[in-house]
């Protein structure tokens, strides 16, 4: 079965246990999550989950219907990469000595459009926002100079199409 990458966006109430409820839907179907991130959305007290999965196209709709069926979920959508604007964020911790001893490292930072977040006598931290390939490339480039720590966030994304959550909530008020 051909798998495809989908970004699932879930608008929900901020209730304890909802995360468990959503993850249980994937668990039950033996689907692994590529990434997961959550934050408050553009609407106060409404939360947004951004979940990335590799899944068969005929399955994604069913899974999203099961998510939307949950009482505390206001609306759930799924989109292909072409239908969204998405980014990931990565942090790289490197020994400070290499910054001064290896001229090349400064070029790498410059060319990758990464920013230096902090510098201390022992280490410095670089931040890079971009697509997976870009943060991955920077990791590869920095690896020879002693990468002390590396961490990448889950995907965050907004859709090109309108979501219409406020309309749903306004309909309820009437």
């Amino acid at each position, binding site marked *: 079965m051909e798998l495809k990458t989908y970004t699932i966006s879930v608008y929900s109430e901020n209730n304890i246990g909802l995360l*468990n*409820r959503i993850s249980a839907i994937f*668990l039950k179907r033996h689907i692994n999550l590529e990434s997961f991130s959550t934050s408050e959305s553009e609407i106060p007290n409404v939360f947004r989950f951004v979940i990335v999965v590799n899944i068969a196209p005929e399955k994604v709709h069913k899974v999203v*219907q099961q998510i939307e069926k949950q009482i*505390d979920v206001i609306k759930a959508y799924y989109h292909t990469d072409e239908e969204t604007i998405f980014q990931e964020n990565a942090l790289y911790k490197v020994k400070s000595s290499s910054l001064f001893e290896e001229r090349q490292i400064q070029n790498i930072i410059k060319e990758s459009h990464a920013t230096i977040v902090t510098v201390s006598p022992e280490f410095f931290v670089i931040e890079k926002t971009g697509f997976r390939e870009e943060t991955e490339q920077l990791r590869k480039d920095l690896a020879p100079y002693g990468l002390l720590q590396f961490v990448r966030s889950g995907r965050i994304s907004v859709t090109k199409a309108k979501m219409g959550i406020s309309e749903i909530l306004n309909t*309820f008020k009437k």
Partner: protein
Amino acid sequence: METKAKQKSPKGTAAPLHISGAEAVIRCLLAEDANLIYGYPGGAIMPIYDEIYKFQDQLHHVLTRHEQGATHAAQGYARTSGKVGVAMATSGPGATNLVTGIADAQIDSTPMVCITGQVASHLLGSDAFQETDIIGISTPVTKWNYQITKASEIPEIMAKAFYIARSGRPGPVLIDITKDAQFELFDFTYEKCTGIRSYQPYPKLVNESLEQAVQLIGEAKKPFIVWGQGVILGQAEQEFKAFLEKSGIPAAWTILGLSALPTAHPSNRGMVGMHGNYAPNLLTNECDLLIAIGMRFDDRVTGDLRTYAKQAKIIHLELDPAEVNKNVKADVTLLSDCKISLRALTDKIETKTYPEWIKRFDDLDAIENEKVIDGDLHPTKPGLTMGESVEMINKHSNGDAVIVTDVGQHQMVACRYAKFTQSKSNVTSGGLGTMGFALPAAIGAKMGAPSREVVAVIGDGGYQMTIQELGTIFQQQVAVKIVILNNDFLGMVRQWQQLFFDKRYASTEMTNPDFVAIAKGYYIEADRVDNREDLDQAVAKMMASDKPYFLEICVEKEDNVFPMIPTGASVSDIRLE
């Protein structure tokens, strides 16, 4: 918690009462017309039980002998009364014992509210005595669940619990209440929930789909209906009957749809699925239009999906959007309460008959009658059959009884042969297949329909999974009739071993106790019958009793249930022997 639910104040709301969380729980139950509770006390729920004691003139608590029994009893009550069943248990093992019944209610869409006690909030997460994460455990098997840690949350959460359990596609809700919240005093007022902003239980019927459905029905030469429990849950029995009579379309039921239409109705063509009738299964793959009403194309109904009704157009009347195109892709979906969509369809279709198509059903019925049904109901060989036992119950109940069944051979036989004249008369564990369901469910079924005869038909295996509920039946004097069809085997598994595992009967033979003595030990009148001559008299005596009554019918040990569609086979591959 913020208010995201619409609530309605009852007229003339009085000034708030300053009461405990525990008393508030009871007042919420009374406000929701839930004055019957099945449960089992324990440490973390004692404050609520103390209020049950104080309110005993207004509500009735039934002490089951195991928490699982409480959930099944609440399910049985919900299924015959149409109301929300309530089960209660303490924290830890009390709560985990509810899980099987909750899972059963979830998959069979039964409205139920479970209330569990929880350790005090300052102990949460400390592995305290009888602490368990029942919210985490019950999440995949509840429609909704919530943990209350402050008394002030109780009214709104209880209102939401009942609203969610009974609205839309019904299901179980679990509310976990910490002990300190039960003790805490607060100002109580109650408002019923009338809506939740993130939950739309009743999608609006789309007119365009309706027109498309009418057109497909108009064009069909060999239309066929399969209906499920949605007809009963939607209280759409009359609308369904009117649709059948005007459309002239033959119809068959899933196991949970049984009794929505009287057995004798001319449009009723029997059961679909693994042990369903020959004609409706075979003709599923011959019809040119399949109208699915309030059913979800369970695998026990469809067999191999790749060969299921591929030649037919499909119209699906369904309330739950997540069921649409889940297993079978529909050409037209009427996403709505079927009470509304059936009425709309009936208005727009023409009156029709399909004599040639109906004759196909009659012809296949004749084959099934000769090869299976005659031998089941009118056996000539010695040894009682399950079929004739059920037929004898029909004779003495006139089809007016509620039949409660467990899981296995007896269940398939009872559902195939029991006759029904009214809805909400078939109580069984369909989706989950929970052995041990029937005895406690019968308690609730009788309390939910006290004026009706309730007969529990149970196998010797499942009976022993919850046999302790005889104690509840005795203590409460619940006048249920308990019929054990005893073949000293886990009969369905044995049948599969015979057919698919070369008769290797691994752990299916049972050495059984003296069931009559056990029933008598609980002071329940009991009898045993093991031959044809005495069956009529034994069943007559049972049905004439107005008290709890136990009857063991010793049936043939190695009879099989046919027809049968082997797992994963096509409905066309239905076997008659």
